[in-house]
C-alpha cells in the first residue's frame, strides 16, 4: 500500500496533436510547484499524473491546487489488485468517513472502473460486491446512486486506486503554453488579480512596476515585490522590473495641463511597459483596468491610453465590479497585502479635476511639451530587475 495523489487535467485533452507538449509543460510546472517537498515523485500514466513518496499530504495538496491546468486531485490508496485488500481499505476509508460525519444515516455508492481487463471481476461486479460488504459491516450506511453523501471510487489499472475525495483545483491551462505577457503591477488590489487571470490561461508573466521615490517609499516597493512573490506561487518565476518614474512625473507636472496628468502618466507607463515587454519576449500587456472605476478608466480615457501602444492590451477585469475583484484577490491571497497602508504620497501628481473625456489629439499635443523619448530611454536604462 502507498498513499498517492491522483491528478486530473481537463482542457488540454482538447489539444490534439499538441497534447504531448501541453502534458510536458504541465508535468514540469507540477514538479516545480512541488520542488520544496523532499523526495516527492511525479509520474505520468494514462491521461493523468500521480504524485508519490511524500509525507506531508496537506502541503502537496495545497501546492497542486495552485497549478494551472489541473482540474481536480484525489488523495488515494495505491493497492495491489486483490479484492480482499481492496475491501480492507474500503472499510478503513468508510470508517473514517463515518467517524467524521454528523449524520446518523449516510448514503453512498461505489463507482468502479476496470482498465485492466485481466482482473477477474468486471466493474459492475466490483461495485456490487464491495457495496454489499460495506453495507454488511456498517449498519448506518444506505445506498443512493443518484445523490450520495459519498462516492467511493475504485480504479483497477496497473495497480488499484481507491479514493473518495475529489478536490477541485484552479483549472485553466499550464503556464507557458500560451506565450508571455507583461503585467503592469501596482500595489493595488486589481493588477495582481488581472495577472492571475491571464496566467490561468497558460500565459507566463513578466511584471513592470513604476516607482516614484521619494513620493512613494521603499516600503511600497516591498509591497509590490511581495505581491509578485504571491503570484509566483501560481505561475512560477516572475522577473519584476521596477521602473524609476519620478522624473517623468515631474516633467509632466511642470509642463503639461493639470487635468491631463493622470492620462499622460498612464500613457507613459504603457509605452515603457511595451518596451520592457519587447525585451522580455512578451507579446502583450496586462492591466487591471475596469471600466469606470476611476477617472482614468472611463471608456474615453481607456481609448486614449490604449492608443499609446501597438501591442494588444489584455484587461481581464474590464467588466468586473470592485467587489468581485476583491473576492478573487482574497481567494488567491493577494488582498491582505494589497490593502497594506503604504500608500503613496503621489497626490501631488494627481489632478484636482482629472479629465474624464480626454481627446487623443489634445493629449498627443501635450506629450510634445516634454522630451518623452529621452525620458523613457532614461527610465528604461535605470530599471531595477528583481528575480522572483
Amino acid at each position, binding site marked *: 500500500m502507498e498513499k498517492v495523489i491522483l491528478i486530473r487535467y481537463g482542457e488540454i485533452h482538447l489539444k490534439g496533436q499538441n497534447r504531448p507538449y501541453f502534458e510536458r509543460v504541465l508535468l514540469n510546472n507540477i514538479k516545480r510547484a512541488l520542488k520544496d517537498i523532499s523526495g516527492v515523485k511525479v509520474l505520468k500514466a494514462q491521461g493523468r499524473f500521480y504524485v508519490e513518496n511524500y509525507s506531508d499530504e496537506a502541503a502537496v495538496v495545497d501546492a497542486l491546487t495552485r497549478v494551472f491546468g489541473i482540474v481536480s486531485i484525489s488523495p488515494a490508496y495505491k493497492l495491489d489488485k486483490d479484492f480482499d485488500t481492496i475491501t480492507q481499505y474500503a472499510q478503513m476509508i468508510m470508517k473514517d468517513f463515518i467517524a467524521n460525519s454528523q449524520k446518523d444515516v449516510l448514503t453512498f455508492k461505489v463507482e468502479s472502473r476496470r482498465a485492466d481487463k485481466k482482473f477477474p471481476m468486471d466493474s459492475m461486479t466490483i461495485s456490487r460486491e464491495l457495496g454489499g460488504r460495506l453495507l454488511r459491516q456498517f449498519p448506518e450506511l444506505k445506498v443512493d446512486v443518484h445523490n450520495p453523501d459519498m462516492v467511493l471510487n475504485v480504479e483497477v489499472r496497473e495497480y488499484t486506486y481507491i479514493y473518495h475525495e475529489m478536490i477541485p483545483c484552479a483549472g485553466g491551462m499550464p503556464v507557458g503554453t500560451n506565450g508571455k505577457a507583461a503585467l503592469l503591477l501596482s500595489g493595488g488590489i486589481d493588477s495582481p488579480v488581472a495577472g492571475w487571470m491571464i496566467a490561468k490561461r497558460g500565459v507566463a508573466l513578466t511584471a513592470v512596476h513604476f516607482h516614484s521615490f521619494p513620493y512613494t517609499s521603499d516600503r511600497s516597493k516591498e509591497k509590490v515585490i511581495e505581491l509578485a512573490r504571491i503570484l509566483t506561487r501560481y505561475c512560477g518565476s516572475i522577473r519584476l522590473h521596477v521602473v524609476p518614474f519620478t522624473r517623468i512625473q515631474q516633467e509632466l507636472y511642470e509642463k503639461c495641463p493639470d487635468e491631463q496628468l493622470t492620462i499622460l502618466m498612464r500613457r507613459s507607463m504603457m509605452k515603457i511597459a511595451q518596451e520592457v515587454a519587447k525585451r522580455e519576449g512578451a507579446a502583450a500587456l496586462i492591466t487591471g483596468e475596469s471600466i469606470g472605476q476611476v477617472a482614468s478608466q472611463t471608456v474615453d480615457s481607456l481609448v486614449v491610453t490604449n492608443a499609446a501602444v501597438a501591442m494588444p492590451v489584455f484587461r481581464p477585469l474590464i467588466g468586473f465590479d470592485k467587489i468581485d475583484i476583491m473576492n478573487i484577490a482574497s481567494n488567491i491571497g493577494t488582498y491582505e497585502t494589497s490593502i497594506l*497602508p503604504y500608500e503613496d*504620497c503621489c497626490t501631488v501628481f*494627481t489632478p484636482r479635476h482629472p479629465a474624464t473625456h480626454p481627446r487623443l489629439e489634445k493629449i498627443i499635443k501635450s506629450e510634445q511639451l516634454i522630451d518623452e523619448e529621452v525620458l523613457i530611454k532614461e527610465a528604461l536604462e535605470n530599471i531595477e530587475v528583481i528575480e522572483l
Partner: protein
Amino acid sequence: MKQIYLDYAATTPVVPEVVDAVTDCLKNDFGNPSSMHRLGIQAEKRIKEAKNHISSLLKTSPDEIIFTSGGTEANNMAILGTAYDKKRSGMHCITTAIEHPSVLQAFKHLEKQGFEVTYLTVDKNGIISLDELKANLRRDTILISIMHVNNETGSIQPIHEIGALLEGLERKPVFHVDGIQAFGKVPLFPDRWGIDLLSMSGHKIHAPKGVGALYKRKDVRIQPILFGGNQQGGLRSGTENIPGIVGMGEGAKWVAQKLADDSSYLKRLKDKLIKGIQEALLNAVINGSVGESAPHILNVGFPGLKGEILLHALEEEGVYVSTGSACSSRERKLSHVLKAMGLDNRTAEGSIRISISYLTTTEEIDEFIPTLVRAVSRIERFTRR
C-alpha cells in the same frame, strides 16, 4: 554614499563599549540569576553592576531599579501597576495629551475598566500649565503620569515643579514620569524631584533593544502586571535578560561619561542646527519652544510640503530623519502631539523630526544643512499648484 543618521530619538546604534560588555556576558555569564549555585550568583552580580550604573546617573539607590523588556513595559507597569494597587483610594488619573502611545494606550485600557482619566492640554510650545494640573487634582486622584521630554518635539515639562507641587498635598498621588527620551540627555533626579516612578529604555542610550527599566521609589507600592517565578521582588516575573541588562548598564555608563566630558555638547550642536536651518530656509518653523526643549530633538515644519516626501528625499541622499505625521492618499494621519500644540494642518503635515546624539559630529550638521536645503527646494518645485 555617505550616511548621516539623524533619527537617534527613534533608536540608537549600539556603541562598541556596549557591544563588548554584552558579548562578554553572552560568552561567559549564561547563568540564571535565580540559580543557587555560583553561576547564578555571577549573573546576579552583573545585574547589580548594571543597576549601579543606572542609579549613579539618577542619583538614587540601586535597589530602586526594576528591569523590563523596554520602555513600553516600564510605562505599562507603572500605570497599570499603580492603578490596580490604588483603586480603592480612587479611580482618577491625570496625564497629558502629548504622551507616547505606551502611556496613552495604557490609560485607554484603564478607562475601559472604569477609571477616569484627565488629559492635560499643552500650549503652543508643547508645555502643560501647572494651574491646569492644580485645578484638576481631586481627592480621588491616585496617579499623575507626565512625560519629561516629548519624543516628537523635545519639549520639556516642568517635572521638578510638578514634584514640588505634589509634595505639598495632603493626599499625594503617585507621580510617574516617562523619562525614556530624557534619560542620559537632560538632568533627571527622581529622588530629589519627588518622582515615584520613572520609565527608561535601553535602545535610546546606545544599548540593545529589548531592555528597559523602571525606577520605583522604595516606599511606593505597585501591583505586578506579569505573573510567574517572582523574580525582581515579585514585581517583574521572568528570568532576567542578563545580556540586555548588562548592555543597558553599560549604555548608562557611556552616556554618563559623555555628559561628564562635555555636558553642553548636544546643546551646542542643536543650536548650530537651528541657526543653520533658520538662516538657509526662511519659511522653516521650529515647532515647540527653543528654550525649554531637550538638546537632542528638533521638530521643524515646512508649511505646504509633505513631511514624508521630505523624509524620503533626504533618504535619497543618505540622511535619515523621521516624521510624526504619516502621509497617505487614503487618510491623513497627523501627529497627536503637533495637533495638541495647536499647529495648523499645513505645518503639521510638513514637519520632520531631527534628533542627534553624542555620536553626531559638527561636520555632519555642516553637511546636513545644504542637503536639507536641496531636498526642500527640489520638493517645493513640485508642490501642489
